[in-house]
């Protein structure tokens, strides 16, 4: 869309990490304005084979904020989340149309390096999925994948990530034991540490606390609060209270469409649409 309209090359204004997601020396196409949303989605349609999973999604996600995606099962919120780091590419038959601009770069452009994109857009899954390796190797995995071999550097960044994910104190004496021996909540925080280790700017979370007990859930929510200082967080949740607690912005999806998007305060107190209110108050879904 903006390729046609007043486009400018603003390479010097783009963050250095962003440059890496463009494969070669292709000029970066960006908006002129400084008040860019971190993620700008226009006319997004996603299909699985012939079924349309997302319809005409338009949404601007703010940097350094937590955006919650809510809606009943099968409404497309997880699909939307997985579009943002192109994880849907791994599902055969999945196809996306439209534009998703991250810092002004369309991630569907043919010259996008998906590997670098996923480094920039980290992801935490619903079911904690540590590798059957040691705690250290789990966190170091992403770093090693991106070519970091120096052991001092690895050590430093693993420690840093574990501190950020509030797990360091619990595991510092057993870094080389299997990650499978950790509790569910610890495993999920390990997965967050693993995602943070590669220095992403955006962190996607797909119901990160749905399989956890209340205490572990509280720890994860606390963590999200701290992390939003440094990261843009998009979180899918089924838990209304959780969405209200952790997020600054909330998007309500229904049947593959974005019904309403606004500040969490407003969505949960005075939503514009009747459907949103029905869902939030539990009259439906």
């Amino acid at each position, binding site marked *: 869309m903006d390729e046609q309209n007043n486009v400018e090359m603003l390479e010097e204004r783009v963050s250095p990490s962003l440059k890496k997601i463009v494969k070669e020396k292709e000029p970066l196409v960006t908006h002129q304005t400084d008040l860019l949303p971190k993620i700008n989605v226009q006319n997004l349609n996603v299909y699985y084979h012939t079924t349309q999973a997302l319809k005409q999604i338009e949404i601007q996600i703010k940097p350094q904020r937590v955006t919650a995606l809510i809606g009943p099962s099968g409404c497309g919120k997880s699909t939307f989340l997985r579009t943002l780091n192109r994880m849907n590419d791994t599902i*055969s038959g999945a196809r996306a149309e439209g534009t998703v601009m991250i810092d002004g770069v369309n991630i569907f452009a043919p010259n996008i390096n998906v590997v670098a994109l*996923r480094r920039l857009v*980290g992801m935490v*899954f619903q079911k904690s*999925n540590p590798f059957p390796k040691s705690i250290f190797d789990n966190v170091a*995995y992403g770093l090693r994948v991106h070519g970091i071999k120096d052991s001092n550097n690895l050590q430093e960044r693993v420690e840093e990530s574990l501190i950020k994910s509030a797990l360091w104190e619990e595991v510092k004496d057993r870094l080389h034991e299997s990650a499978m021996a950790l509790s569910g909540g610890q495993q999920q925080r390990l997965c967050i540490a693993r995602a943070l280790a590669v220095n992403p700017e955006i962190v996607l979370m797909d119901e990160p606390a749905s399989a956890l007990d209340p205490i572990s859930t509280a720890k994860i929510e606390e963590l999200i609060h701290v992390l939003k200082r440094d990261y843009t967080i998009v979180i899918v949740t089924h838990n209304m209270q959780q969405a209200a607690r952790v997020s600054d912005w909330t998007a309500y999806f229904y049947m593959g469409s974005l019904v309403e998007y606004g500040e969490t305060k407003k969505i949960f107190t005075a939503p514009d649409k009747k459907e949103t209110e029905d869902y939030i108050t539990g009259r439906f879904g």
Partner: protein
Amino acid sequence: MPTKQSLTQKNIRLSERAIEKILLLAGISSVVLIGLIFIFLFKEAVFFFQTASPFDLIGKWVYDEWASKNIFNMMWQAVSKIPKYSLVPLICGSFLVAFPATLISAVIGIGCAIYLSEIASNKTRETLKPTLELLAGIPSVVLGFFMLAVVATVVQNLLGTKFRLNAFVGSLGTALCVLPIIITISEDALRAVPKELRDASYALGATKWQTIFGTVLPAAISGISAAVILGFGRALGETMIVVMATGNAALITLNIFSSVRTMTANIAAELGAVAQGSEHYYALFVVGSVLFAFTFILNIFSEIILSGMRRKLRM
């Protein structure tokens, strides 16, 4: 509930219990059969030691007329003035065929399993897998015949080997037998790796190759090892191909291009021609027991490894 209905329910319960018992019997029967075979094999083998010493299984001091002195003879010469029952050349032959066969089929089989589970499209897999399973369905006598008539000549022409039929030709044929086992079990192991682990790897920006070699293979390594061990057991037990393709000379050698005789080939070739109850007859049962012990231990090993893997991947 009316009494009529409870009556019929009782009948159902009875027939259900009968079915359960019948199925239990079917389940136990295989265990009982294995036990019986085990007992039979060892019982017959024990008779060998009534007339011979266990030391004979390694070798025997025999007076050599050429050298005019006693020399330690490690040979399998069951039909001879002084019968010799050394297992050393047979075990040597078995391993000289089974090791290369397992090696060849492990390299090809694991590669094939990776391709099938990680790379091939569904359509490709659906045509390739049945074709590979067809390989398992070829009677080993046909493979042996093919080895003896065609491959042996080709190998000799290519490599200029001294013996047309040798351990290498036998192991090529055996590799064809072992291949489907390694492919099937390795592929199962690779597919048992949860999709969540692959997703985690991709989400960290790993490429397909990094995901396969950094995540999927390490997670499946115990299953793949079990596949290779089972394949090795199968290679040790393979009979028809080695009877036909290895030349059947009971030599102690490490030369893969030499003719060898395996334990299995030895039993197959001789058991039909010995007098029941003779020392030679019992000696063959000793060979069979040793072979059985080898494969039994290998199977137990692979079972331990596989159950270890299932524990590790349970998330």
